Protein backbone atom coordinates (compact mmCIF):
# COMPACT_ATOMS: atom_id res chain seq x y z
CA UNK A 1 0.00 0.00 0.00
CA UNK A 2 2.82 2.38 0.89
CA UNK A 3 4.58 1.85 -2.45
CA UNK A 4 1.33 2.38 -4.28
CA UNK A 5 0.80 5.69 -2.55
CA UNK A 6 4.31 6.84 -3.36
CA UNK A 7 3.48 6.37 -7.01
CA UNK A 8 0.30 8.39 -6.69
CA UNK A 9 0.78 11.17 -9.30
CA UNK A 10 -1.53 13.52 -7.41
CA UNK A 11 0.48 13.45 -4.22
CA UNK A 12 3.35 15.96 -3.98
CA UNK A 13 6.54 14.28 -2.70
CA UNK A 14 6.70 16.29 0.49
CA UNK A 15 3.23 15.22 1.49
CA UNK A 16 3.43 11.51 0.88
CA UNK A 17 4.37 10.19 4.33
CA UNK A 18 1.98 12.66 5.94
CA UNK A 19 -0.75 11.73 3.53
CA UNK A 20 -0.27 8.05 4.17
CA UNK A 21 -0.65 8.24 7.92
CA UNK A 22 -3.09 11.10 8.19
CA UNK A 23 -5.60 10.09 5.60
CA UNK A 24 -5.15 7.03 3.48
CA UNK A 25 -4.20 4.49 6.09
CA UNK A 26 -7.09 5.45 8.32
CA UNK A 27 -9.46 5.76 5.43
CA UNK A 28 -8.59 2.36 4.02
CA UNK A 29 -9.10 0.71 7.37
CA UNK A 30 -12.64 1.96 7.70
CA UNK A 31 -15.32 3.07 5.35
CA UNK A 32 -15.77 6.59 6.62
CA UNK A 33 -13.46 9.26 7.86
CA UNK A 34 -14.38 11.83 10.51
CA UNK A 35 -12.96 15.31 10.72
CA UNK A 36 -13.54 17.54 13.73
CA UNK A 37 -15.08 20.84 12.76
CA UNK A 38 -15.63 24.07 14.67
CA UNK A 39 -19.14 24.53 13.27
CA UNK A 40 -20.57 21.10 12.47
CA UNK A 41 -18.67 19.13 15.17
CA UNK A 42 -18.01 16.10 12.93
CA UNK A 43 -17.79 16.01 9.16
CA UNK A 44 -17.80 12.52 7.73
CA UNK A 45 -16.40 11.52 4.35
CA UNK A 46 -16.34 8.09 2.79
CA UNK A 47 -13.26 6.59 1.20
CA UNK A 48 -14.06 7.92 -2.28
CA UNK A 49 -14.57 11.44 -0.97
CA UNK A 50 -11.30 11.27 0.93
CA UNK A 51 -9.57 10.78 -2.41
CA UNK A 52 -10.88 14.16 -3.52
CA UNK A 53 -9.86 15.65 -0.18
CA UNK A 54 -6.34 14.32 -0.71
CA UNK A 55 -5.78 15.68 -4.19
CA UNK A 56 -3.26 18.50 -4.43
CA UNK A 57 -5.81 21.05 -5.57
CA UNK A 58 -8.04 20.50 -2.59
CA UNK A 59 -5.10 20.39 -0.16
CA UNK A 60 -4.01 23.73 -1.61
CA UNK A 61 -7.09 25.28 0.00
CA UNK A 62 -5.40 24.77 3.39
CA UNK A 63 -3.27 27.76 2.39
CA UNK A 64 -5.96 30.11 1.08
CA UNK A 65 -7.50 32.34 3.74
CA UNK A 66 -11.28 32.40 3.62
CA UNK A 67 -11.40 36.15 4.26
CA UNK A 68 -8.14 37.34 2.70
CA UNK A 69 -6.45 39.95 4.92
CA UNK A 70 -9.44 40.34 7.25
CA UNK A 71 -7.27 38.92 10.02
CA UNK A 72 -5.56 42.32 10.13
CA UNK A 73 -8.88 43.77 11.28
CA UNK A 74 -10.40 40.73 13.01
CA UNK A 75 -7.49 38.69 14.38
CA UNK A 76 -9.56 35.51 14.52
CA UNK A 77 -10.24 35.50 10.79
CA UNK A 78 -7.42 33.08 10.00
CA UNK A 79 -9.61 30.19 8.83
CA UNK A 80 -9.13 28.78 5.36
CA UNK A 81 -11.14 27.74 2.29
CA UNK A 82 -10.30 24.12 3.23
CA UNK A 83 -12.60 23.89 6.25
CA UNK A 84 -15.30 26.02 4.62
CA UNK A 85 -15.40 23.60 1.67
CA UNK A 86 -15.78 20.66 4.03
CA UNK A 87 -18.59 22.49 5.82
CA UNK A 88 -20.35 23.27 2.54
CA UNK A 89 -20.18 19.57 1.63
CA UNK A 90 -21.65 18.53 4.98
CA UNK A 91 -24.54 20.99 4.65
CA UNK A 92 -25.19 20.20 0.97
CA UNK A 93 -25.59 16.53 1.87
CA UNK A 94 -28.03 17.40 4.65
CA UNK A 95 -30.08 19.68 2.40
CA UNK A 96 -30.14 17.05 -0.35
CA UNK A 97 -31.44 14.45 2.12
CA UNK A 98 -34.22 16.75 3.34
CA UNK A 99 -35.47 17.99 -0.02
CA UNK A 100 -35.40 14.56 -1.67
CA UNK A 101 -36.99 12.73 1.25
CA UNK A 102 -40.14 11.21 -0.35
CA UNK A 103 -42.19 12.40 2.64
CA UNK A 104 -41.26 15.98 1.74
CA UNK A 105 -42.04 15.77 -1.98
CA UNK A 106 -45.53 16.40 -3.35
CA UNK A 107 -46.96 14.57 -6.36
CA UNK A 108 -46.90 17.81 -8.32
CA UNK A 109 -43.17 18.25 -7.75
CA UNK A 110 -42.59 14.59 -8.59
CA UNK A 111 -44.23 15.26 -11.96
CA UNK A 112 -42.15 18.39 -12.58
CA UNK A 113 -38.87 16.84 -11.37
CA UNK A 114 -39.13 13.07 -11.80
CA UNK A 115 -35.50 12.56 -10.73
CA UNK A 116 -36.18 13.82 -7.23
CA UNK A 117 -37.29 10.55 -5.68
CA UNK A 118 -35.93 8.11 -8.24
CA UNK A 119 -34.22 5.57 -6.02
CA UNK A 120 -31.83 4.13 -8.61
CA UNK A 121 -30.11 7.49 -9.28
CA UNK A 122 -30.43 9.06 -5.83
CA UNK A 123 -27.06 7.77 -4.58
CA UNK A 124 -25.38 9.09 -7.71
CA UNK A 125 -26.80 12.60 -7.41
CA UNK A 126 -26.18 12.76 -3.67
CA UNK A 127 -22.55 12.02 -4.42
CA UNK A 128 -22.46 14.68 -7.16
CA UNK A 129 -23.90 17.28 -4.81
CA UNK A 130 -21.50 16.50 -1.96
CA UNK A 131 -18.43 16.45 -4.21
CA UNK A 132 -19.67 19.56 -6.02
CA UNK A 133 -19.96 21.39 -2.70
CA UNK A 134 -16.56 20.09 -1.60
CA UNK A 135 -15.00 21.46 -4.80
CA UNK A 136 -17.03 24.64 -5.30
CA UNK A 137 -14.05 26.83 -4.26
CA UNK A 138 -11.28 24.64 -5.66
CA UNK A 139 -10.15 27.25 -8.20
CA UNK A 140 -9.69 30.11 -5.75
CA UNK A 141 -6.74 32.44 -6.15
CA UNK A 142 -4.49 33.41 -3.26
CA UNK A 143 -6.39 35.55 -0.74
CA UNK A 144 -9.73 34.45 -2.15
CA UNK A 145 -11.72 37.31 -3.63
CA UNK A 146 -9.30 40.06 -2.62
CA UNK A 147 -7.86 40.69 -6.04
CA UNK A 148 -9.59 38.29 -8.37
CA UNK A 149 -11.09 40.56 -10.99
CA UNK A 150 -8.07 42.76 -11.57
CA UNK A 151 -5.52 39.96 -11.52
CA UNK A 152 -6.99 37.49 -13.97
CA UNK A 153 -7.17 37.92 -17.74
CA UNK A 154 -10.53 39.06 -19.10
CA UNK A 155 -13.14 36.33 -19.05
CA UNK A 156 -11.48 34.37 -16.24
CA UNK A 157 -12.73 33.80 -12.71
CA UNK A 158 -12.03 31.35 -9.91
CA UNK A 159 -15.10 29.43 -11.05
CA UNK A 160 -13.67 29.00 -14.55
CA UNK A 161 -10.35 27.84 -13.09
CA UNK A 162 -12.31 25.50 -10.82
CA UNK A 163 -14.03 24.05 -13.86
CA UNK A 164 -10.64 23.44 -15.52
CA UNK A 165 -9.48 21.61 -12.40
CA UNK A 166 -12.63 19.50 -12.19
CA UNK A 167 -12.40 18.58 -15.86
CA UNK A 168 -8.66 17.79 -15.72
CA UNK A 169 -7.58 14.19 -16.48
CA UNK A 170 -6.38 13.68 -12.88
CA UNK A 171 -9.67 14.76 -11.36
CA UNK A 172 -11.67 12.79 -13.91
CA UNK A 173 -9.74 9.69 -12.84
CA UNK A 174 -10.59 10.24 -9.17
CA UNK A 175 -14.26 10.86 -9.94
CA UNK A 176 -14.48 7.96 -12.35
CA UNK A 177 -13.11 5.54 -9.75
CA UNK A 178 -15.85 6.42 -7.28
CA UNK A 179 -18.73 4.07 -6.50
CA UNK A 180 -20.83 4.81 -8.48
CA UNK A 181 -18.52 6.54 -11.01
CA UNK A 182 -19.19 10.26 -11.20
CA UNK A 183 -19.12 12.39 -14.36
CA UNK A 184 -16.84 15.41 -13.88
CA UNK A 185 -19.21 17.53 -16.00
CA UNK A 186 -22.06 16.90 -13.55
CA UNK A 187 -19.91 17.95 -10.60
CA UNK A 188 -18.73 21.10 -12.39
CA UNK A 189 -22.27 22.04 -13.34
CA UNK A 190 -23.78 21.82 -9.87
CA UNK A 191 -20.70 23.37 -8.23
CA UNK A 192 -20.87 26.47 -10.44
CA UNK A 193 -24.58 26.86 -11.12
CA UNK A 194 -26.30 28.61 -14.04
CA UNK A 195 -25.00 32.04 -13.05
CA UNK A 196 -21.35 31.08 -13.52
CA UNK A 197 -21.81 28.37 -16.14
CA UNK A 198 -24.28 30.17 -18.34
CA UNK A 199 -23.02 28.44 -21.47
CA UNK A 200 -24.25 25.10 -20.15
CA UNK A 201 -27.90 24.08 -20.27
CA UNK A 202 -29.48 23.20 -16.92
CA UNK A 203 -32.48 20.93 -16.47
CA UNK A 204 -34.88 21.70 -13.61
CA UNK A 205 -33.22 18.96 -11.57
CA UNK A 206 -29.69 20.23 -12.20
CA UNK A 207 -30.76 23.78 -11.39
CA UNK A 208 -32.18 22.59 -8.06
CA UNK A 209 -28.99 20.68 -7.25
CA UNK A 210 -26.87 23.75 -7.95
CA UNK A 211 -29.25 25.81 -5.78
CA UNK A 212 -28.43 23.41 -2.93
CA UNK A 213 -24.79 24.44 -3.22
CA UNK A 214 -24.62 28.00 -4.53
CA UNK A 215 -28.24 29.21 -4.35
CA UNK A 216 -28.73 32.89 -3.51
CA UNK A 217 -31.21 32.18 -0.74
CA UNK A 218 -30.35 28.83 0.88
CA UNK A 219 -27.12 27.59 -0.68
CA UNK A 220 -24.90 25.43 1.54
CA UNK A 221 -21.99 27.70 0.61
CA UNK A 222 -23.74 30.72 2.07
CA UNK A 223 -25.04 28.96 5.17
CA UNK A 224 -21.57 27.67 6.00
CA UNK A 225 -19.64 30.87 5.36
CA UNK A 226 -21.99 32.98 7.46
CA UNK A 227 -21.80 30.58 10.41
CA UNK A 228 -18.08 29.94 10.05
CA UNK A 229 -16.96 33.51 9.46
CA UNK A 230 -18.97 34.87 12.39
CA UNK A 231 -17.61 32.10 14.63
CA UNK A 232 -13.98 32.82 13.79
CA UNK A 233 -14.28 36.58 13.74
CA UNK A 234 -16.10 36.68 17.05
CA UNK A 235 -19.25 38.50 15.93
CA UNK A 236 -22.79 37.28 16.48
CA UNK A 237 -24.24 38.81 13.30
CA UNK A 238 -23.84 35.69 11.18
CA UNK A 239 -25.64 33.23 13.43
CA UNK A 240 -29.08 31.81 12.81
CA UNK A 241 -30.96 28.57 13.40
CA UNK A 242 -29.64 26.61 10.45
CA UNK A 243 -30.88 23.29 11.87
CA UNK A 244 -34.48 24.48 11.76
CA UNK A 245 -33.97 26.13 8.40
CA UNK A 246 -32.54 23.05 6.69
CA UNK A 247 -35.21 20.83 8.20
CA UNK A 248 -37.93 22.95 6.60
CA UNK A 249 -36.44 23.36 3.11
CA UNK A 250 -38.58 21.90 0.32
CA UNK A 251 -38.68 21.83 -3.46
CA UNK A 252 -41.81 23.87 -4.24
CA UNK A 253 -43.57 25.25 -7.28
CA UNK A 254 -42.85 28.94 -7.61
CA UNK A 255 -46.11 30.93 -7.38
CA UNK A 256 -44.62 33.43 -9.85
CA UNK A 257 -43.22 31.23 -12.59
CA UNK A 258 -44.68 27.80 -11.84
CA UNK A 259 -41.22 26.26 -11.92
CA UNK A 260 -39.75 24.05 -9.20
CA UNK A 261 -37.32 25.83 -6.89
CA UNK A 262 -36.11 25.51 -3.33
CA UNK A 263 -38.41 27.16 -0.81
CA UNK A 264 -39.32 26.73 2.79
CA UNK A 265 -42.20 25.50 4.91
CA UNK A 266 -44.00 28.27 6.77
CA UNK A 267 -42.55 26.99 10.05
CA UNK A 268 -39.05 27.75 8.81
CA UNK A 269 -39.77 31.23 7.49
CA UNK A 270 -38.35 32.98 10.55
CA UNK A 271 -35.13 30.98 10.25
CA UNK A 272 -34.96 32.02 6.59
CA UNK A 273 -35.46 35.65 7.60
CA UNK A 274 -32.69 35.24 10.18
CA UNK A 275 -30.32 33.88 7.52
CA UNK A 276 -30.99 36.78 5.17
CA UNK A 277 -30.65 39.32 7.98
CA UNK A 278 -27.41 37.63 9.02
CA UNK A 279 -26.16 37.99 5.48
CA UNK A 280 -27.05 41.67 5.40
CA UNK A 281 -25.30 42.28 8.73
CA UNK A 282 -22.19 40.32 7.79
CA UNK A 283 -21.85 42.15 4.48
CA UNK A 284 -22.23 45.59 5.97
CA UNK A 285 -20.26 44.99 9.19
CA UNK A 286 -17.58 42.50 8.17
CA UNK A 287 -17.12 41.80 4.46
CA UNK A 288 -17.33 45.49 3.54
CA UNK A 289 -15.59 46.88 6.59
CA UNK A 290 -13.66 49.88 5.26
CA UNK A 291 -10.24 48.82 6.59
CA UNK A 292 -10.68 45.32 5.18
CA UNK A 293 -11.49 46.76 1.76
CA UNK A 294 -8.49 49.08 1.62
CA UNK A 295 -6.19 46.19 2.60
CA UNK A 296 -7.57 44.31 -0.40
CA UNK A 297 -6.79 47.30 -2.63
CA UNK A 298 -3.20 47.58 -1.32
CA UNK A 299 -2.77 43.82 -1.74
CA UNK A 300 -3.96 44.09 -5.31
CA UNK A 301 -1.45 46.90 -5.92
CA UNK A 302 1.34 44.77 -4.54
CA UNK A 303 0.34 41.76 -6.62
CA UNK A 304 0.03 43.79 -9.81
CA UNK A 305 3.69 44.70 -9.43
CA UNK A 306 4.93 41.40 -8.06
CA UNK A 307 3.26 38.92 -10.40
CA UNK A 308 4.79 38.27 -13.83
CA UNK A 309 2.93 40.55 -16.27
CA UNK A 310 0.74 41.64 -13.37
CA UNK A 311 -1.61 38.66 -13.59
CA UNK A 312 -2.10 35.31 -11.91
CA UNK A 313 -1.53 32.30 -14.17
CA UNK A 314 -4.66 30.57 -15.40
CA UNK A 315 -2.81 27.34 -16.18
CA UNK A 316 -3.77 25.10 -13.28
CA UNK A 317 -0.35 23.45 -13.13
CA UNK A 318 1.20 26.87 -12.50
CA UNK A 319 -1.53 28.17 -10.18
CA UNK A 320 -0.91 25.28 -7.81
CA UNK A 321 2.46 26.83 -6.97
CA UNK A 322 1.00 30.08 -5.60
CA UNK A 323 -0.91 30.25 -2.32
CA UNK A 324 -1.28 32.87 0.40
CA UNK A 325 1.99 31.58 1.86
CA UNK A 326 4.11 32.46 -1.15
CA UNK A 327 2.41 35.85 -1.50
CA UNK A 328 2.78 36.64 2.21
CA UNK A 329 6.49 35.76 2.19
CA UNK A 330 7.06 38.04 -0.79
CA UNK A 331 4.96 40.81 0.73
CA UNK A 332 6.88 40.78 4.03
CA UNK A 333 10.17 40.83 2.16
CA UNK A 334 9.08 43.72 -0.05
CA UNK A 335 7.87 45.69 2.97
CA UNK A 336 11.35 45.51 4.53
CA UNK A 337 13.25 46.54 1.40
CA UNK A 338 12.45 49.99 0.09
CA UNK A 339 13.91 49.16 -3.31
CA UNK A 340 11.82 46.05 -3.73
CA UNK A 341 9.02 45.77 -6.27
CA UNK A 342 5.72 46.64 -4.63
CA UNK A 343 7.40 48.09 -1.55
CA UNK A 344 4.96 50.95 -0.96
CA UNK A 345 1.82 48.79 -1.06
CA UNK A 346 3.49 46.07 1.04
CA UNK A 347 4.65 48.60 3.62
CA UNK A 348 1.18 50.10 3.93
CA UNK A 349 -0.21 46.66 4.75
CA UNK A 350 2.45 45.54 7.22
CA UNK A 351 2.77 48.85 9.06
CA UNK A 352 -0.97 49.62 8.97
CA UNK A 353 -0.30 52.88 7.15
CA UNK A 354 -3.15 52.13 4.80
CA UNK A 355 -5.26 54.79 3.09
CA UNK A 356 -8.17 56.14 5.18
CA UNK A 357 -11.80 56.84 4.40
CA UNK A 358 -12.39 60.41 3.30
CA UNK A 359 -15.90 59.89 1.92
CA UNK A 360 -18.49 57.14 2.08
CA UNK A 361 -21.88 56.56 0.54
CA UNK A 362 -24.83 57.86 2.55
CA UNK A 363 -28.57 58.10 1.91
CA UNK A 364 -28.68 61.91 1.91
CA UNK A 365 -26.16 62.28 -0.90
CA UNK A 366 -27.62 59.38 -2.90
CA UNK A 367 -31.03 61.03 -2.85
CA UNK A 368 -29.46 64.08 -4.53
CA UNK A 369 -27.21 62.17 -6.91
CA UNK A 370 -27.11 58.36 -7.29
CA UNK A 371 -23.54 58.71 -8.53
CA UNK A 372 -22.36 60.85 -5.60
CA UNK A 373 -19.37 58.56 -4.91
CA UNK A 374 -18.14 58.88 -8.48
CA UNK A 375 -18.53 62.67 -8.35
CA UNK A 376 -16.56 63.00 -5.11
CA UNK A 377 -13.81 60.63 -6.26
CA UNK A 378 -13.33 62.48 -9.53
CA UNK A 379 -13.36 65.90 -7.85
CA UNK A 380 -10.75 64.89 -5.27
CA UNK A 381 -8.47 63.42 -7.91
CA UNK A 382 -8.79 66.51 -10.04
CA UNK A 383 -7.96 68.78 -7.11
CA UNK A 384 -5.12 66.84 -5.46
CA UNK A 385 -3.84 64.25 -7.99
CA UNK A 386 -4.80 60.67 -8.77
CA UNK A 387 -2.09 59.01 -6.70
CA UNK A 388 -3.57 60.05 -3.35
CA UNK A 389 -6.94 58.34 -3.78
CA UNK A 390 -8.46 54.90 -4.03
CA UNK A 391 -12.11 53.91 -4.40
CA UNK A 392 -14.10 50.82 -3.59
CA UNK A 393 -17.74 50.64 -4.69
CA UNK A 394 -19.96 47.60 -4.46
CA UNK A 395 -23.67 46.90 -4.69
CA UNK A 396 -25.43 43.66 -4.02
CA UNK A 397 -26.14 41.70 -7.18
CA UNK A 398 -28.85 39.30 -6.10
CA UNK A 399 -32.51 40.00 -6.71
CA UNK A 400 -35.09 40.34 -3.94
CA UNK A 401 -35.31 37.36 -1.57
CA UNK A 402 -38.31 35.93 -3.39
CA UNK A 403 -38.83 32.20 -2.78
CA UNK A 404 -41.91 30.04 -2.29
CA UNK A 405 -43.28 29.43 1.19
CA UNK A 406 -45.47 26.40 1.80
CA UNK A 407 -48.29 27.58 4.05
CA UNK A 408 -49.86 25.29 6.65
CA UNK A 409 -53.00 25.01 4.50
CA UNK A 410 -50.94 23.49 1.67
CA UNK A 411 -50.88 26.55 -0.59
CA UNK A 412 -47.66 28.17 -1.82
CA UNK A 413 -47.07 31.90 -1.52
CA UNK A 414 -44.19 34.18 -2.35
CA UNK A 415 -41.93 35.02 0.60
CA UNK A 416 -42.40 38.66 -0.38
CA UNK A 417 -46.07 38.37 0.56
CA UNK A 418 -45.51 36.28 3.68
CA UNK A 419 -42.72 38.28 5.30
CA UNK A 420 -42.72 41.98 6.17
CA UNK A 421 -39.09 41.54 7.22
CA UNK A 422 -37.94 40.34 3.79
CA UNK A 423 -39.83 43.11 2.01
CA UNK A 424 -37.96 45.68 4.10
CA UNK A 425 -34.53 44.08 3.81
CA UNK A 426 -32.14 46.77 2.54
CA UNK A 427 -29.83 46.26 -0.42
CA UNK A 428 -26.17 46.06 0.52
CA UNK A 429 -24.37 49.00 -1.07
CA UNK A 430 -21.03 50.54 -0.15
CA UNK A 431 -18.92 53.21 -1.76
CA UNK A 432 -15.71 54.36 -0.11
CA UNK A 433 -13.22 56.96 -1.26
CA UNK A 434 -9.88 56.52 0.50
CA UNK A 435 -7.07 59.05 0.84
CA UNK A 436 -3.40 58.59 1.72
CA UNK A 437 -2.78 59.31 5.41
CA UNK A 438 -0.42 62.16 4.48
CA UNK A 439 -3.18 64.05 2.66
CA UNK A 440 -6.09 63.15 4.88
CA UNK A 441 -6.51 66.34 6.88
CA UNK A 442 -6.21 68.70 3.93
CA UNK A 443 -8.68 66.67 1.85
CA UNK A 444 -11.23 66.44 4.63
CA UNK A 445 -11.29 70.22 5.01
CA UNK A 446 -11.54 70.77 1.25
CA UNK A 447 -14.31 68.22 0.87
CA UNK A 448 -16.27 69.70 3.76
CA UNK A 449 -16.27 73.07 1.97
CA UNK A 450 -17.09 71.71 -1.50
CA UNK A 451 -19.18 68.57 -1.02
CA UNK A 452 -22.54 70.21 -1.74
CA UNK A 453 -21.43 71.61 -5.09
CA UNK A 454 -19.68 68.40 -6.12
CA UNK A 455 -22.70 66.22 -5.49
CA UNK A 456 -25.11 68.59 -7.17
CA UNK A 457 -23.12 68.45 -10.43
CA UNK A 458 -25.38 65.98 -12.22
CA UNK A 459 -24.99 64.27 -15.53
CA UNK A 460 -27.77 65.75 -17.67
CA UNK A 461 -28.75 66.01 -21.32
CA UNK A 462 -29.33 69.47 -22.79
Amino acid sequence: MYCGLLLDPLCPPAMKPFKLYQFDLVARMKNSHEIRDAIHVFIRLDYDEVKVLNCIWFQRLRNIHQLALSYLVYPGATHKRFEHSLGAMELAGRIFDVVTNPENVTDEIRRLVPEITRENTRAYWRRVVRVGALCHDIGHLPFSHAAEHALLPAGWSHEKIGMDILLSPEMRTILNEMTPPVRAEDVAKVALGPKKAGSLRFSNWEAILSEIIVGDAFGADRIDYLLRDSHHIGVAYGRFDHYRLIDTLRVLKSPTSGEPVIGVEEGGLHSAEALLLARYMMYTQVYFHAARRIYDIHLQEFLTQWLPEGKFPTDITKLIEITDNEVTAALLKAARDKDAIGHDAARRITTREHFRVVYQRNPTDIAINPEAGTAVYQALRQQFGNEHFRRDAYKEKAGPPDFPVLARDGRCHSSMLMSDTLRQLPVVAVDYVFVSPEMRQECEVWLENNRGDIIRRKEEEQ
Partner: protein
Amino acid sequence: MTTRLQKAALLCYLTDRLVANGSWCGETHIQKSTFFLQEEADLPTEFEFILYKHGPFSFDLRSELTSMRADGLLLLEPQYPYGSSYATTENGRELQKRFPKTIDRFRLRMEFIAQTLGPKNVAELEQLATALYMMRKHPNKSSDRIAAEINEVKPHVSVPEAKRAVPQVEEIVAKLKALQ
Protein backbone atom coordinates in the same frame (compact mmCIF):
# COMPACT_ATOMS: atom_id res chain seq x y z
CA MET B 1 -21.67 55.13 -25.23
CA THR B 2 -24.58 54.88 -22.84
CA THR B 3 -23.80 55.74 -19.23
CA ARG B 4 -25.09 53.82 -16.26
CA LEU B 5 -27.57 56.61 -15.41
CA GLN B 6 -28.90 56.71 -18.98
CA LYS B 7 -29.56 52.96 -18.78
CA ALA B 8 -31.22 53.44 -15.41
CA ALA B 9 -33.42 56.19 -16.88
CA LEU B 10 -34.48 53.87 -19.72
CA LEU B 11 -35.33 51.09 -17.26
CA CYS B 12 -37.33 53.52 -15.10
CA TYR B 13 -39.28 54.64 -18.17
CA LEU B 14 -39.92 51.03 -19.21
CA THR B 15 -41.14 50.20 -15.69
CA ASP B 16 -43.54 53.16 -15.75
CA ARG B 17 -44.91 52.19 -19.15
CA LEU B 18 -45.38 48.53 -18.15
CA VAL B 19 -47.39 49.62 -15.11
CA ALA B 20 -49.38 52.13 -17.18
CA ASN B 21 -50.28 49.33 -19.60
CA GLY B 22 -51.75 47.12 -16.92
CA SER B 23 -48.74 44.97 -16.13
CA TRP B 24 -48.15 43.82 -12.57
CA CYS B 25 -44.51 44.45 -13.50
CA GLY B 26 -42.62 41.63 -11.87
CA GLU B 27 -38.98 41.08 -12.65
CA THR B 28 -39.92 38.69 -15.48
CA HIS B 29 -41.82 41.47 -17.27
CA ILE B 30 -38.82 43.77 -17.11
CA GLN B 31 -36.41 40.98 -18.09
CA LYS B 32 -38.36 39.82 -21.14
CA SER B 33 -39.29 43.34 -22.28
CA THR B 34 -35.67 44.42 -22.07
CA PHE B 35 -34.62 41.29 -23.98
CA PHE B 36 -36.96 42.13 -26.87
CA LEU B 37 -35.96 45.80 -26.88
CA GLN B 38 -32.24 45.15 -26.66
CA GLU B 39 -32.15 42.40 -29.27
CA GLU B 40 -34.67 43.76 -31.77
CA ALA B 41 -34.94 47.51 -31.15
CA ASP B 42 -31.31 48.46 -30.43
CA LEU B 43 -31.97 49.54 -26.84
CA PRO B 44 -28.39 50.29 -25.71
CA THR B 45 -28.51 48.40 -22.43
CA GLU B 46 -25.85 45.79 -23.30
CA PHE B 47 -26.98 43.12 -20.86
CA GLU B 48 -25.85 39.54 -21.41
CA PHE B 49 -28.78 37.12 -21.63
CA ILE B 50 -28.55 33.38 -21.12
CA LEU B 51 -31.22 30.71 -21.36
CA TYR B 52 -32.23 30.20 -17.75
CA LYS B 53 -35.19 28.82 -15.86
CA HIS B 54 -37.71 31.38 -17.13
CA GLY B 55 -36.30 31.64 -20.64
CA PRO B 56 -33.76 34.32 -21.60
CA PHE B 57 -32.52 35.94 -18.43
CA SER B 58 -29.79 38.43 -17.61
CA PHE B 59 -27.98 38.31 -14.29
CA ASP B 60 -26.49 41.71 -15.22
CA LEU B 61 -29.96 43.17 -15.53
CA ARG B 62 -30.96 41.64 -12.21
CA SER B 63 -27.90 43.29 -10.63
CA GLU B 64 -28.85 46.61 -12.19
CA LEU B 65 -32.40 46.40 -10.84
CA THR B 66 -31.00 45.70 -7.37
CA SER B 67 -28.59 48.57 -7.79
CA MET B 68 -31.46 50.87 -8.74
CA ARG B 69 -33.32 49.83 -5.60
CA ALA B 70 -30.21 50.64 -3.57
CA ASP B 71 -30.11 54.08 -5.20
CA GLY B 72 -33.78 54.73 -4.48
CA LEU B 73 -34.82 54.76 -8.14
CA LEU B 74 -37.02 51.66 -8.00
CA LEU B 75 -38.94 50.03 -5.18
CA LEU B 76 -40.65 46.72 -4.60
CA GLU B 77 -44.33 46.50 -3.77
CA PRO B 78 -46.18 43.37 -2.65
CA GLN B 79 -48.35 41.99 -5.45
CA TYR B 80 -50.92 39.34 -4.54
CA PRO B 81 -50.79 36.48 -5.49
CA TYR B 82 -47.46 36.61 -7.31
CA GLY B 83 -44.91 38.22 -5.04
CA SER B 84 -43.42 41.59 -5.73
CA SER B 85 -43.78 44.26 -8.39
CA TYR B 86 -41.33 46.94 -9.41
CA ALA B 87 -42.37 50.59 -9.41
CA THR B 88 -40.42 53.79 -9.92
CA THR B 89 -39.90 56.23 -7.07
CA GLU B 90 -40.00 60.00 -7.19
CA ASN B 91 -36.22 59.93 -7.72
CA GLY B 92 -36.72 57.46 -10.58
CA ARG B 93 -39.15 59.85 -12.25
CA GLU B 94 -36.75 62.76 -11.73
CA LEU B 95 -33.99 60.74 -13.35
CA GLN B 96 -36.08 60.30 -16.52
CA LYS B 97 -36.39 64.10 -16.81
CA ARG B 98 -32.62 64.35 -16.98
CA PHE B 99 -32.39 62.19 -20.12
CA PRO B 100 -35.18 63.35 -22.43
CA LYS B 101 -33.25 62.72 -25.67
CA THR B 102 -32.28 59.18 -24.76
CA ILE B 103 -35.83 58.30 -23.80
CA ASP B 104 -37.31 60.01 -26.88
CA ARG B 105 -35.17 57.85 -29.16
CA PHE B 106 -36.83 54.70 -27.82
CA ARG B 107 -40.18 56.01 -26.60
CA LEU B 108 -42.38 54.47 -29.32
CA ARG B 109 -40.66 51.10 -29.27
CA MET B 110 -40.77 50.89 -25.48
CA GLU B 111 -44.44 51.85 -25.48
CA PHE B 112 -45.20 49.15 -28.03
CA ILE B 113 -43.38 46.45 -26.02
CA ALA B 114 -45.03 47.61 -22.80
CA GLN B 115 -48.45 47.36 -24.46
CA THR B 116 -47.69 43.97 -25.99
CA LEU B 117 -45.84 42.18 -23.21
CA GLY B 118 -47.02 44.09 -20.13
CA PRO B 119 -50.38 42.35 -19.65
CA LYS B 120 -49.03 38.85 -20.28
CA ASN B 121 -48.42 36.32 -17.52
CA VAL B 122 -45.07 34.71 -16.77
CA ALA B 123 -45.77 31.52 -18.75
CA GLU B 124 -46.70 33.53 -21.87
CA LEU B 125 -43.64 35.74 -21.48
CA GLU B 126 -41.43 32.70 -21.17
CA GLN B 127 -42.84 31.18 -24.36
CA LEU B 128 -42.39 34.35 -26.41
CA ALA B 129 -38.96 35.24 -25.11
CA THR B 130 -37.68 31.67 -25.50
CA ALA B 131 -39.02 31.65 -29.06
CA LEU B 132 -37.14 34.86 -29.84
CA TYR B 133 -34.00 33.42 -28.26
CA MET B 134 -34.22 30.30 -30.41
CA MET B 135 -35.07 32.25 -33.58
CA ARG B 136 -31.98 34.40 -33.10
CA LYS B 137 -29.83 31.38 -32.33
CA HIS B 138 -31.06 29.40 -35.34
CA PRO B 139 -32.01 32.02 -37.94
CA ASN B 140 -32.23 29.48 -40.76
CA LYS B 141 -34.40 26.88 -39.09
CA SER B 142 -38.06 26.44 -39.98
CA SER B 143 -40.84 27.36 -37.54
CA ASP B 144 -41.44 23.68 -36.83
CA ARG B 145 -37.79 23.12 -35.96
CA ILE B 146 -37.76 26.22 -33.75
CA ALA B 147 -40.87 24.94 -31.96
CA ALA B 148 -39.18 21.59 -31.42
CA GLU B 149 -36.09 23.34 -30.02
CA ILE B 150 -38.26 25.34 -27.61
CA ASN B 151 -39.98 22.18 -26.44
CA GLU B 152 -36.62 20.48 -25.98
CA VAL B 153 -35.20 23.17 -23.68
CA LYS B 154 -38.55 23.91 -22.00
CA PRO B 155 -40.44 20.60 -21.81
CA HIS B 156 -43.33 22.31 -20.01
CA VAL B 157 -43.91 24.38 -23.17
CA SER B 158 -45.78 22.01 -25.48
CA VAL B 159 -44.97 21.87 -29.19
CA PRO B 160 -48.37 23.41 -30.13
CA GLU B 161 -47.75 26.26 -27.66
CA ALA B 162 -44.29 26.75 -29.08
CA LYS B 163 -45.66 26.73 -32.63
CA ARG B 164 -48.14 29.44 -31.71
CA ALA B 165 -45.36 31.55 -30.13
CA VAL B 166 -43.17 31.68 -33.26
CA PRO B 167 -45.52 33.71 -35.54
CA GLN B 168 -46.41 35.97 -32.60
CA VAL B 169 -42.75 36.80 -32.14
CA GLU B 170 -42.32 37.38 -35.89
CA GLU B 171 -45.18 39.87 -35.74
CA ILE B 172 -43.74 41.67 -32.69
CA VAL B 173 -40.32 41.91 -34.31
CA ALA B 174 -41.77 43.23 -37.57
CA LYS B 175 -43.70 45.95 -35.73
CA LEU B 176 -40.65 46.90 -33.70
CA LYS B 177 -38.60 47.27 -36.87
CA ALA B 178 -41.30 49.43 -38.40
CA LEU B 179 -41.08 51.80 -35.44
CA GLN B 180 -37.36 52.46 -35.89
